């Protein structure tokens, strides 16, 4: 049983958040950086970690773990920033996603991808494109455009005028 929209073998970049393995369509990934200094933008939700300097451009960095309700990503030697290209409100934008570690690039056939379960992932279903089968484990394939959709990021916009809702 395959997932609608996935009809050919696609390459995915896998990465870990805590112990769970996630994957991203490689076509969306620009590059992977080591964790560098992130400048926090005041009065924004915690999962918006801030901005970094990517060769002269200012690129926002999102903490996916916080976004998915896990703990804050701690800096380790393996911590990476995955630079992805997403479409926000019809325009493409570059942003960085924090990951505890980046694993490998894998090929997945359409028949290796299962539809996402309604419950059990502790993630919003629309964030998940499908579940990739590999060996005996499942990999959560993220729909990065949904994760960083305008609605999700509107939390940022909620921070105007008054203290952000995500205050300690």
């Amino acid at each position: 049983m395959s997932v609608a929209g996935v009809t050919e073998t696609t390459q995915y970049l896998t990465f870990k958040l805590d112990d769970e393995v996630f994957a991203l369509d490689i076509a969306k990934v620009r590059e992977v950086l080591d964790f560098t200094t992130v400048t926090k933008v005041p009065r924004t939700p915690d999962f918006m970690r801030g901005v970094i300097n990517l060769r002269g451009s200012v690129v926002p960095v999102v903490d996916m773990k916080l976004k998915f309700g896990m703990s804050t990503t701690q800096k380790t030697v393996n911590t990476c920033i995955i630079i992805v290209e997403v479409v926000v409100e019809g325009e493409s934008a570059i942003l960085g996603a924090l990951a505890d570690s980046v694993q490998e690039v894998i090929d997945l056939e359409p028949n290796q991808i299962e539809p996402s379960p309604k419950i059990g992932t502790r993630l919003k279903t629309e964030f998940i494109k499908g579940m990739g089968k590999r060996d005996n484990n499942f990999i959560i394939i993220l729909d990065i455009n949904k994760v960083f959709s305008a609605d999700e990021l509107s939390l940022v916009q909620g921070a105007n005028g008054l203290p952000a809702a995500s205050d300690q």
Partner: protein
Amino acid sequence: MEEVDLIRQVFLTESVEHLQNIEDCLLAMETNPDDTDTINALFRAAHTIKGSSGIVGLEIVEKFTHNVESLLDKVRRGELRINADITEVLLKCRDHIASLIEIETDGRLLEGELKATGEALKSELLKLLGAKQEEDKKIEASAVVEAAPSYNASETSNWHLSLRFSQNVLQDGMDPISFINYLSRIGEIVYLATLTDTMPSLEEMNPENCYLGFELEFKTDFDKKTIDDVFEFVREDSQIRILPPHSSVSSYVELIRSLPEDPLRLGELLVKGGALTQSELDAALQEQDESKGRLGEILVKDSVVHPEVVEAAVEKQKRAREVKSLESQTIRVDINKLDQLVNMVGELVITGANINQQAQRLQDGSLLESASAMSRLVEAIRERSMQVRMVPINEVFTRFNRVVRDICHDSGKEIELVINGGDTEVDKTVVEKISDPLMHLVRNAADHGLEMPEARAAKGKRAKGVLKLNAFHDAGCIVIEVVDDGAGLNKEKIIKKALERGMLNQSQIQTMTDGEIYRLIFEAGLSTAEQITKLSGRGVGMDVVRKNIEALRGTVEVSSQENQGTTVSIRLPLTLAIIDGFLVGIGDSSFVIPLDMVVECVELSEAYRESKDRRSYINLRGEVLPYLRLKDLFEESSEVSKYENIVVVKYLGFKVGLVVDNLFGEVQAVIKSLGRLYKDIEGVSGATILGDGTVALILDIPRLVSIAEKMEHLVTDSQ
């Protein structure tokens, strides 16, 4: 295909300029209808639009402009005098051409209203052309009477053509001989002389250049236009002069004077060709022997030509030369190329700052020296590259001549537009973006601010209202003022509207200053206009004006006095790309405060720090200075540092202190956008990259202050 697009693109940019030129000229002629320079410029602009629209295949534009050109040609030849009616028609034609260009480049069809307008304008043009033809006859008749007793008109019935092709004509793919061949197909060449005066010596001669000039006597029944059209493709670079039959001697003299060759030799040629009689020339030659003067002067003495005519001709040539030299000193550059350049200079500034820091760290004397020499150069390059993008604000201002004129025309008001400081320079992007908000403000002032002449008279004011546009530089900003001497803003009306809309409550009004009340007009949904007119009260409102200006990191202020007028002043940064900033540290983060807002820095003394929970103002040399604790505002959780400083910033005339942990000093901040994700963040206007590669945020002081105000209101309201 691509090339055609490219040519069209060039045509589009140029046509905008030409149309603007036409408008400027027409407006100038309202006050000075007989200025030949303006008339010529006007004709040239229309002619160029016609010609180039033909080349890029915009036939509708070409056809319509042709009629305009014919009319202007008559004006140019002095057969028709510009008056208010003609100006009105021509202005409408100009607008029509602009719309035609727009629809035809879009590939849309000419239909509906636009087509009707076109037809109407065309018939008006033709009417004017016809009317003037009758006048023509009168002028001709009177000319004959004048000419009879003197020898001012030459006897020849031939056309005289002077051809000086540009040296590049062969390289451009044109052959002069084919033009001459073509001429012999539409008439008879009576006489042809080839001039080789400009031919250099054999060593210097470039066989691919054309050095020849031609003088022709030409007999034809066709009109000047037809002959002129023969040279359509070479007219730009070449000197083509056509004198109709029976031209006055003075036009021949002017011709001789304007050509590069020896006047005497030309004179002989003219006689040989039969353009002038020997006696006319003899008289001139004789004089020349006696006085060694130049042909022009001789003819003047001989009263063949009036001195003013020669003077005018000479003056005109001189001016033409000046204009030409100016033209050759400017080049048209794609704005993208400039942007790239500015971007790279921005990177250079960052890298330079980095090198400086490294040099500081290493404490190597010679390295420090070179590093500082380099930063000086980089600074110079930065300034130059910024200047490249600077254009005079007049580019926008002159547009309003027409706007104001039209408003007067439609509403019956009398308004004088006064422009001050039009040559104040500002970044091209700023000019583009400020155009719409300014248009709105000008229309508002003219439409709502200034009263009708009777109303003004009743108030004891001059019937003619004054609308001023001022621009000047002030503390790293450009200030643009729209000043009118009209009715002023009506405070009661604003308050009433604001109450109706529920934007305010009664108690708030009690505490509001006049300035704050006037500021309400920039809020959405508050229009004090009683009726919506053709000109304003629709489309963008004052709130959009404010938003547009704030998007440019600018501010807008309004002051007003009842029956004295209203002043709206807009304050904009000179450039959008780089600012001089003051780097401060709060906790682990660095922030940049725009340097032009920083007044001074003072230490936050121990006594105040201890009482920090109670109040947030200090005594600054006897002045009350309220301060904001940025750390609290930004919810930075780091510990309170040992020393805190206050950066005093001035904003809209009042001072605020910002409490920060560290003062790092001045930096040049290349402004980077935070991107769409952070587009609605308040208190931060952008980011910049520091010498060490980290990102620092640029503080938006006005917004910070308003956030602090809101938070304080929350606290006080809950008490």
